[in-house]
């Protein structure tokens, strides 16, 4: 046994040594102030919510937009992760100290912190994903130096609901959220309406578990972190006969996907990014309700870096491709052609304004 260990250790050491045998790169003189970094003092920065940059969802999309801006626009960037609600204020403060001129908060949970910082630092521009600003009397207000980046995801979720209704074999589908907040509930509203549209078209009666749109009540896992809660809720849906589940809970959805994977034939609809590519559960991802946070972030950084910052809210829709339905990937053949045609038709109707997906949570 000891001999084997020794041999393994030696082998490992040799492998490491060989790996270290590459040739050194040529010394390059650092060119001072290369590129556009020296042109201006512009610095785009970002604060995550508790999910962190690796949530395979919402924060990650925003971070990718920031990184893209760094690469494509050559702007200076910085990003900090929050681990608790109490981090938001101090993290924004440390970015201000770091010389950031445009600071984006990812997630409505940062609203109070971004609003306070925007009011206190009128010379710095701010962006906030998924929330507008409001005063104590529940009125929406505008801040001169802060831009909300919003998404009407109900439109895309509507299409996903339609697909779910059309492809379920058990006649039962489910959805749950992370927290009962507008930016989550709007997915669930659209999903429920999409299923209802399928029921109307086909005369079937597909049930949706987990969300009652009329009452605005449903099932929530309680946070955007604890994957086991997602797993439990999804298992509950599966036990009640659901075969397609749409978790709207960031990384908590991974727990749901783990439960779904255990039941043959069951599928998930991912949200925010294309789950076929961003998660390891590609083979069970029917489709994804995409929210192009990265693109919105990139565009807003581009505007701000060119001095064209405006506090006008950005609203992502099917029309401007700020939201959309991801390809079916492995399930391309499982979705009937007439359903695909109908989805294209519905999408056109939504874009043209002929069909309006109503949601009390719409921006």
């Amino acid at each position, binding site marked *: 046994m000891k001999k084997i260990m020794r041999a393994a250790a030696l082998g490992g050491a040799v492998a490491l040594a060989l790996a270290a045998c590459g040739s050194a790169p040529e010394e390059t003189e650092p060119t001072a102030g290369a590129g556009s970094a020296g042109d201006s003092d512009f610095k785009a920065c970002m604060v995550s919510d508790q999910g962190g940059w690796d949530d395979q969802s919402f924060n990650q999309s925003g971070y990718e937009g920031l990184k893209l801006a760094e690469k494509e626009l050559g702007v200076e960037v910085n990003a900090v992760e929050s681990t608790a609600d109490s981090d938001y204020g101090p993290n924004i403060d440390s970015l201000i100290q770091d010389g950031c001129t445009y600071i984006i908060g990812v997630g409505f949970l940062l609203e109070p912190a971004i609003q306070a910082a925007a009011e206190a630092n009128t010379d710095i521009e701010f962006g906030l994903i998924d929330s507008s600003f409001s005063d104590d009397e529940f009125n929406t207000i505008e801040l001169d130096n802060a831009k909300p980046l919003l998404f009407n995801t109900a439109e895309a979720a509507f299409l996903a609901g339609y697909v779910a209704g059309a492809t379920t074999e058990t006649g039962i589908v489910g959805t749950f959220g992370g927290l009962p*907040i507008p930016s989550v509930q709007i997915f669930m509203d659209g999903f429920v309406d999409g299923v209802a549209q399928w029921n109307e078209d086909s005369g079937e009666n597909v049930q949706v578990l987990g969300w009652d749109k009329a009452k605005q009540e449903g099932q929530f896992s309680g946070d955007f972190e604890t994957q086991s809660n997602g797993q439990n809720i999804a298992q509950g849906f599966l036990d009640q006969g659901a075969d397609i589940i749409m978790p709207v809970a960031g990384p908590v959805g991974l727990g749901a996907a783990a439960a779904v994977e255990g039941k043959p034939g069951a599928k998930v609809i991912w949200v925010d990014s294309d789950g076929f590519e961003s998660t390891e559960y590609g083979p069970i991802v029917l489709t994804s309700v995409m929210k192009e946070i990265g693109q919105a972030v990139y565009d807003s950084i581009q505007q701000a870096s060119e001095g064209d910052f405006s506090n006008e809210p950005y609203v992502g829709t099917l029309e401007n491709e700020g939201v959309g339905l991801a390809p079916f990937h492995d399930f391309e053949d499982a979705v009937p052609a007439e359903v695909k045609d109908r989805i294209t038709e519905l999408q056109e109707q939504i874009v043209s304004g002929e069909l309006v997906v109503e949601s009390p949570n719409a921006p």
Partner: protein
Amino acid sequence: MSQPAAPPPAQPPSEPQDAPVAAPAATEERPPGLLQDVLASSWLMTVCAIVLALVIGAVLIAAADPDVQSSAGYLFARPSDFFTAVWQTISSAYAALFQGAVFDWAAASPQRAIRPLTETLTISVPLILAGLGVGIGFRAGLFNIGAQGQITLGAILASWVGFTWHLPAGLHLAVAMVGAAIGGAVWASIAGVLKARTGAHEVIVTIMLNNIAVFLVLYLLTTSVFRSPTPQVGRTVAETAMLPGLLGDGFRLHLGFPLALLAALGVWWLMERSTVGFRFRAVGSNPHAARTAGMSVPWVTITVMAVAGALAGLAGGAQLLGTERNLTGAIAGSIGFDALTVALLGRSKPLGTVLAGILFGAFAAGGRLMQTRTGTPIDIVLVLQSLIVLFIAAPPLVRAVFRLRAPGERRRSTAEAAA
């Protein structure tokens, strides 16, 4: 954190070197095990554990750095690059950690330069208070995992008093803090009563209560009483109920810090000087002996939980009234679990808990700047904290690394000689 109720070590319960009060002995359902062993380890061990954690953290920081990774590829062609990159990465990360936690010599103004230390102390306030509560539980033989829920309840009551009542400044704050303490105490007492009456294990019950507390807040935040314009954020507490700042604008350090120190003093008096504290310790050391001596073990269990809960509730109150001002679902953050570590690190003594709380506050404050200035992942801070717990919980490992003698070694040899 997993449960430290590990199999008992082979050696006899060791005598604490500098504090004979925490007499280790059998508790009812836990034989002298890890908890006793950990509480009895020396100050030197604690320092060694921190040093060891920092060393391993340094390796991880270096390994995660892209410059180090690329220069490792041609280590033999030009080793200087690799070692420079390693040194640069580690030194800049730890320098930023220090700058963010104690004194920032690179700051724009003198005010910003001294601000980090005040941030460290600010963050330490709830950690110290909750850590004191957890520590009392440890010494009475109760493993109270429920600080998280008790903090949450404290925060709920503090915020409710803070925005619904209208009282003069000072009185309002006092009432809100008392409310916080009561909230935490009641929540913890549920576990205490269940343990005393039915024997339900406090670990299970308090964990369950943590979950209930989280969902209770989420529910309350949807009710008209707590709701604010921002979803999942509670109403703003009146200025009169806020803990006043100690240093004026630009600093967050508030009255909570001296209060936490006072609480530590109070706990010291309670545990070391009062009859009640003596009963707590007696039951913690040996419930059978305590019962034989005429003490009511159920009474002690309930009281310990209530006191521990009150302290955790105060932590929630201090967090809400000191810095946060609005109730949120995650108001307790990870304070409740960090408090377990703080209590372990401080070996459940008030002074130790204060120092451990400040250390963890320093990690949190420093971690933010380390992340902003050097891009070191914030997760490193969690790794450091976790490594410290690991080493604290594995005294033989640390002893082996630093070649220290086991605390019971001398005693055992003399005992053997006597036999």
